[in-house]
């Protein structure tokens, strides 16, 4: 106490500013010591939880493996399975335990395929974990929880969650929407693309790429008719549908495809022109040439790229009109096309052009 009194009295005879500084220093030291104490407690708790989680993970892994390795021919298979289900079910009231169990299930699904993988799905349902995921969807309080719940339903192929998941097709969160798309594709295959009928929100380029990648993993089945999607009000659905047409050669709807060349959205029109360029679709070239001057510059450049592959002698008049086009790309394209459809006419331009730039272009094309 006397030391404390001495400390307290120390500042009495000192100037005010020094007293304040000493008091501040004391407060900082006490705060730091307190924080160190708190951090030690937090660290201890974290390590304790980590150890427990690891033990729990090993416990679940052991039971899961036992479950998966019980032979089909074993007459006591059902009893053995039920014992394991009972052991695991006892622990599922706590949210942290459920999280660790689901993590173990995900880990297992990532490692094994075939019958064993289907057995994991079966166990997921028997443990009632589907209900927990559906409950998260009903709560819908947080996009992360919603996305995680849909991901779980996708990973374990839960078909009967279709109604709950479809409520999120037009979620404002892009991450949730993505999980919905992949749920439908993973669980229902090509038929799962029916979500496109209801989609009113955008689809990013990255999501489109991932959708096409996921579809590649589906075993060969009949592909649904994309006509509805090509006629969708949502331009993102139309663009994805065009990519599906290109990937799966779905050319039964030529009229619809030709009509898309006049779609109100430029991106759709450009995508459509690319499709016509790749696949030599009949009448496409004529439609594009007839409407050339009403189109945007990007479309015009795209049309000339198409003509580089598909132009014939009948198109010479149109090509000659654009030989002196103000756009450099179109000009070069026109000269290339002329070179391929009428070389002698092309060579005449060597003498017609007085401009050095044009002469260089002709020389480059002539000798390439």
């Amino acid at each position, binding site marked *: 106490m006397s030391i404390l009194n001495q400390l307290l009295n120390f500042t009495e005879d000192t100037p005010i500013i020094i007293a304040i500084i000493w008091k501040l220093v004391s407060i900082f030291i006490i705060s730091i010591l307190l924080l160190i104490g708190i951090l030690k407690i937090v660290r201890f708790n974290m390590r304790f939880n980590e150890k427990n989680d690891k033990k729990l993970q*090993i416990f679940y*892994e*052991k039971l*899961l*493996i036992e479950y*998966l*390795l019980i032979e089909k021919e074993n007459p006591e298979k059902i009893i053995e399975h039920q014992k394991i289900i009972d052991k695991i079910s006892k622990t599922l009231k706590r949210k942290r335990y459920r999280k660790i169990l689901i993590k*173990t299930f995900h*880990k*297992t*699904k*990532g*490692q*094994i*395929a*075939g*019958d*064993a*993988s289907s057995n994991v799905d079966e166990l997921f349902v028997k443990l009632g974990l589907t209900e927990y995921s559906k409950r998260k969807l009903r709560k819908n309080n947080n996009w992360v929880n919603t996305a995680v719940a849909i991901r779980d339903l996708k990973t374990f192929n839960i078909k009967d969650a279709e109604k709950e998941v479809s409520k999120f097709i037009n979620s404002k969160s892009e991450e949730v929407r993505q999980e919905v798309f992949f749920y439908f594709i993973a669980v229902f295959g090509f038929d799962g693309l029916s979500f496109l009928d209801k989609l009113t929100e955008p689809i990013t380029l990255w999501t489109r790429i991932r959708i096409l990648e996921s579809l590649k993993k589906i075993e060969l089945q009949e592909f649904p008719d994309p006509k509805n999607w090509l006629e969708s009000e949502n331009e993102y659905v139309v663009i994805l549908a065009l990519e599906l047409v290109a990937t799966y050669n779905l050319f039964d709807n030529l009229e619809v495809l030709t009509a898309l060349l006049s779609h109100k959205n430029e991106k759709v029109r450009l995508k459509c022109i690319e499709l016509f360029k790749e696949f030599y679709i009949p009448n496409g070239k004529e439609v594009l040439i007839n409407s050339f001057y009403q189109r945007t510059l990007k479309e015009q450049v795209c049309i000339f790229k198409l003509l580089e592959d598909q132009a014939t002698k009948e198109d010479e008049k149109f090509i000659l009109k654009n030989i002196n086009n103000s756009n450099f790309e179109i000009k070069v394209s026109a000269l290339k096309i002329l070179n391929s459809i009428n070389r002698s006419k092309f060579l005449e331009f060597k003498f017609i052009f007085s401009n050095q730039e044009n002469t260089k272009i002709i020389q480059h094309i002539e000798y390439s």
Partner: protein
Amino acid sequence: MYKKYKIVIAEDNTLFLTFIKFKLEKEGFELYLAENGKQAIELIEKHNPDLILTDVMMDFISGLEVISYVRNTLKSQTPIIVFSASGQEEIVLKAFHLGANDFIGKPLSPNELVIRIKKLLK
């Protein structure tokens, strides 16, 4: 006389390792387990197995380094099957170039693995 084939399995994922161990023991194989490339090499040198199963990504020494060691240092033609969660073409090509006999991407079917092992051991 019935021969019990010896297999060294190198895999750092304990769940997968345990699962494969149970499956292959049921098929009658004698197994030696390693959780990393270093342990795998020690087991290979000690037991001279009939087949090696190795994951690509492991601590200390990777599966590709194990293959290289077996083919170039030990000069052994023991069949090697590589598995990996990464299906990158680069890794697959490198594994074959180093001398692997087969490659399986994860997730893998245990039944398929058994068939491939039996085929190589014939």
